[in-house]
């Protein structure tokens, strides 16, 4: 017999079951996906939702997918009514103006029925490598969404647990890698069905009423924890701003402006003053902008508590109409996440004066994507697309240095592609890979270092680059200094060029591309950093000897011991220069 009651014990058991259900779904999807961007990039997420579309449990590889799967379910209910759902249905959609993000992101969800009753939804999202844009992958110079691939509203791809062959065939025919696209689709469908099965097992045990009572209680607990944390912040208005280098098409900076109002238990994030819709692909649908604001909130407010339908009870996000963060047709959205990485850092910066122990200097800022596309002569000229985000430095904080070579804030479980795997799969040789010295922002706590990686092409192919944040490199806090921004060097035909963004640049065998990612911002006055720590950084290669003298005022003997006297003199001199 099912028990119909809620008590602290049952509630805690059900809460853990929801979370593990979401983890099961995620494991199913990641382990059976076909493309590295899902299984290495972890560019995906899953959620178990109640019948209203509120989150019961979720698991995410990508923080910015936090809490916007429910939007897709809710708007489908709005558009078609609940009657549209039948057991064994599966829906697909990818419209950025509805779900946020870009066309590559496939949202797939399924209703869950218990007996005849609609009791919830299992939902998934994953990045599909190619959805038929004008160039392979995600073009960097699109000016309309129609150049970025196919666009679908909520569409039934399964009915009564049977695939709708005609509809799925339409998907397959419209991507460049149709076979792996269907493989990735299957992994998402499979994750939805895993969620359905697990939910039914929970319902068998406790009954649907007990689940509802428990989820109500779980939401209440989350809301209470959040309210308490926000109320503890001093009332006031906090602001920050920064810009992207450009929109990928023009050369004007693109501004993101943040104002956070705290009033009692309420937090309002207002993005008034953010740049107007851009011609290039840095626009973002509102649903995704809200998710990103929630990521920043979550970094500061109860980060260890999993997200559910009760989280963010007092958070309001205002996104101005007509701005890049409230994209409308036909604005291109391919690189929607670039302003979001900045937005998250800015919200943290705005609130850092009232949460100094929780904040950190800015991180290197964006995914810093390089991809190489062409034919592999070692495999009968089969097409290849080698796509990589690149880690960089994270911001320093009061009690510690920023991390060196860590993936950016909108990504999460991403792992770099091992040199051995890269060289085996693609006709490219990696020349070197390591920390970029002096790239971290100097501070009492040092900002993390960015990375360098050298690609030696073994065959002709096309280069695509999306490197950002040279106009707003990672800033420091509390007297900590800014980090160095990114740089990419291309050596071709004996000449050398620097660039950050490029679309479809043809290169020849023997050409070399070297990427450098930026560091993280420093924290506190670098002249107060313990000289022994600076010495260790020099030995480890994070800081050069010149950098130690220039940024930290630390001078060494020939044997690389700290020269205390010379250091004191140097620091005094630098302090005078700094204050004048």
């Amino acid at each position, binding site marked *: 017999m099912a028990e119909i009651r809620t008590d*602290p*014990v049952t509630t*805690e058991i059900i809460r853990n*079951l929801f979370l*593990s259900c979401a983890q*099961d779904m995620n494991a199913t999807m990641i*382990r*059976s*996906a*076909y*493309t590295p961007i899902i*299984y*290495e990039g*972890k560019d995906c997420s899953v959620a178990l939702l109640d019948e209203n579309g509120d989150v019961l449990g979720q698991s995410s590889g990508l*923080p910015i997918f*936090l809490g916007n799967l429910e939007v897709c379910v809710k708007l489908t209910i709005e558009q078609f009514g609940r009657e549209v759902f039948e057991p064994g249905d599966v829906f697909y959609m990818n419209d950025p103006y509805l779900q946020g993000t870009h066309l590559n992101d496939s949202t797939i969800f399924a209703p869950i029925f218990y007996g005849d009753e609609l009791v919830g939804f299992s939902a998934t999202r994953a990045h599909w490598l190619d959805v038929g844009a004008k160039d392979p992958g995600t073009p960097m110079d699109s000016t309309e969404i129609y150049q970025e691939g196919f666009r679908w509203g909520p569409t039934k791809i399964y009915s009564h647990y049977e695939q709708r062959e005609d509809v799925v065939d339409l998907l397959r025919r419209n991507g460049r890698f149709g076979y*792996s696209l269907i*493989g990735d689709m*299957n*992994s998402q469908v*499979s994750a939805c069905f895993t969620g359905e099965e*697990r939910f039914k097992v929970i319902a068998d045990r406790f009954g649907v009423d007990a689940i509802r009572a428990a989820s109500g209680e779980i939401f209440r*607990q989350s809301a*209470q924890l959040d309210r308490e944390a926000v109320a503890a912040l001093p009332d006031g208005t906090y602001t920050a701003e920064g810009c992207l280098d450009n929109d990928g098409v023009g050369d004007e900076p693109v501004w993101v402006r943040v104002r956070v109002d705290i009033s009692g238990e309420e937090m309002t994030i207002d993005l008034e003053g953010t740049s107007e819709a851009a011609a290039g692909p840095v626009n973002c649908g509102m649903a995704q902008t809200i998710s990103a604001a929630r990521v920043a909130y*979550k*970094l500061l407010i109860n*980060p260890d508590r999993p997200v559910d339908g009760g989280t963010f009870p007092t958070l309001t996000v205002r996104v101005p109409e007509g701005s890049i963060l409230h994209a409308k047709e036909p604005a291109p959205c391919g690189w929607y996440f670039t302003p979001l990485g900045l937005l998250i850092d800015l919200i*943290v910066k705005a609130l850092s004066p009232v949460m100094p122990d*929780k*904040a*950190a200097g800015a991180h290197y800022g964006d995914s810093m994507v390089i991809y190489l596309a062409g034919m592999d002569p070692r495999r009968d000229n089969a097409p290849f697309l080698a796509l990589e985000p690149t*880690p960089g430095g994270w911001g320093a*904080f009061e*009690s*510690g240095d920023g*991390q060196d*070579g*860590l*993936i950016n804030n909108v990504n*999460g*479980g*991403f*792992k*770099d592609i*091992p*040199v*051995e*795997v890269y*060289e*085996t799969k693609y006709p490219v*040789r990696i020349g*070197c*890979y*390591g*920390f970029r010295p002096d790239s971290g922002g100097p501070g009492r706590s040092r900002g993390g270092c960015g*990375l360098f990686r*050298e690609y030696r092409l073994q065959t002709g192919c096309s280069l695509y680059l999306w490197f950002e944040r040279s106009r707003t490199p990672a800033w420091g806090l509390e007297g900590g200094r800014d980090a160095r921004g990114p740089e990419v060097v291309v050596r071709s035909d004996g000449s050398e060029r620097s660039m950050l963004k490029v679309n479809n640049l043809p290169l020849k065998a023997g050409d070399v591309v070297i990427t450098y990612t930026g560091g993280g911002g420093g924290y506190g006055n670098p002249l107060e950093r313990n000289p022994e720590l600076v010495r*260790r950084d020099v030995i*480890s*290669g994070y800081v050069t000897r010149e950098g130690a003298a220039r940024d930290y005022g630390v001078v060494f003997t020939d044997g690389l011991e700290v020269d205390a006297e010379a250091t004191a003199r140097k620091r005094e001199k630098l302090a005078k220069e700094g204050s004048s």
Partner: protein
Amino acid sequence: MTRYRVSIDIGGTFTDLVVHDEEERRSFTGKVLSTPDDPARGVITGLEDLIEDPTDISFLVHGTTVGLNAFLERRGARVLLITTEGFRDVYAIARGDRKKLFALQYRKPEPLIPLQDIHTVRERMLYDGMVEESIREEDFDPIVEKVRDEGIDSVAVCFLHAYVNPEHELRAREILRKRVPRLSVTLSHEVAREWREYERASSAVLNAYIAPTVERYLKNLEGQLEERGVGARLHVMQSNGGVMTASAARDLPIQTLLSGPVGGTIGGGALSEALGRPNLLCVDMGGTSFDASLIVEGQPTVSTEVELEGLPVLMSLVDIHTVGAGGGSLAYLEAGALRVGPRSAGADPGPACYARGGTQPTVTDANLLLGRMDPKYFLGGGMDLDARAAEQAVSGVARELDLPTEELAEGILRIINAKMAEAMRTITVEQGIDPREYTLVAFGGAGPMHAVALARELEIGEVIVPPAPGTFSAWGMLQTDIRHDMTQTFYQPMDPSISGELESIYSKLEEEAQEVLRDEGVPSERMHLVRTADMRYVGQEYFVNVELPQNGKLTGEKLDELTERFHAAYKTRYGHSTPGAPVEFVNLRVAALGELERNVAGFKPPAGDEAPVHSTREVIFEGKTLPTRIFRRAELPAGAWMAGPLVIEEDTATTVVPPGWGARVDELGNVIIEREGS
């Protein structure tokens, strides 16, 4: 005279021994306090208690946590890592991922060595094994100087693509050994012949890190045993579930890492065979942790990669899923919600009822309060428990939640059981395995007390509590084979035309394996080789391990069969497959087994028809206080059916059977618990 087969499980608190007397055909057990400063002392004491003449020992195997503890407590050797020029930072970059999504002040897992102890030399191998740049002896000059000046005794070497062509790594060892003869040198390709330079370097560093400690320990133990006249060769339990000789363990100490816990799983495998039950879910619940593992079709499930404290290790190891749940798990409040574990009272102060200063309630306190344990018969009466302290601790939290004390005690058990059930679900349901088709085997000090509750959570109908459940891991070590795993990465699409190339790689791996087994003294009629392949759909990363069709040389036809097996295995695992889609190989593997004796029938129950009731006491089950019969395990004859509620007590464990379930003892001394009417 050689009549005793002996196994020893050296844990943090106790050293457990199981002796099988081949003459009398019976087994007996012993438990002595561990002696962490010199583990050999505890072993010798334990042996002397049980066996008169050490020359009577014919076979000796042990499980050790020496390597694991050196790693967990960061007390290993200082290691230098030597790698390819241009790639010094790979080990510190650690692939750049964040394991927590919402952490501004994130820290990467703490590496075992700092950047200043990583050195590079000029050399470069390409992806296909061609040499692009040769290795030079003079590049080692500064490294050798540092090793000598700073007294370093362990070095790891990891060069790019060494898994394809190990020539440069071998040369590096030659150069180093020539100049520093006693240096311990770990080569990455010998630890794991698989791609991914960070993971391989991490594995090699870990091996180098624990090598001197394990080496010293084994040498000492072997020496002491020899002094006492033990002539039998010392064997060590490996993480992959097999055993190896101590000398093989010295070559690859990383294989001893999970040497302790795997014994229980292997014991499960032996039970599976003896009882004719192919599928078992094995659970080991102690004071602080809960280990769950599987026997599928008579075999333990084995993984090829694991993360320890965030650091990846490439090696074959029995899948053991561990969560922080045990008798010592603490119950506490957070935001008005009740939490149980993973925080633990440990052994000191321990549960409140140990009366050593603990005041917060634990799982053991809840069990005691509900009458499931006898405060006068803990450790067979060796230690008294304080029932009042247990009640005070539980009622303190109960008042805050406004719950009756007994209800909270049951609630604590429900939460901890649900957690353990989740761990069991992770290794079953998540892998596409239906636990209802399994029998639960419960051991460890606390396992038999929770076993039936766990079985109910997963709708399992049968539970087995083996004889001497407190020393079951040691018993398992007597039920295994010598095992070595050989691997070669082979990144190629599936195609019938490559059967010849595959055959020659497998043959080479098998030859290497046979040579190792021969070195360990295994006669060829006792060798058994199993070929498997890691396979996936082209473009995927994760793979499925598939066993090859046996008998004779590989042919195109057999490869077709292998492809079919892959599709089927994939479907079982993920619920979908893509027949007709291109498939590729990732790694080829050979498991080499050397069969050893087994003795599963060492604990015969006494003769008789009826189970004598020792006493009766009140135990609370689901809010009801029921008079409950108490039995002593040693007095239970085979076959007699006992209806629950009942409690079976023995020296190191207590088995609880609630109403609606019943128990009997089988011919091998196992307690078999079933749902009534099933």
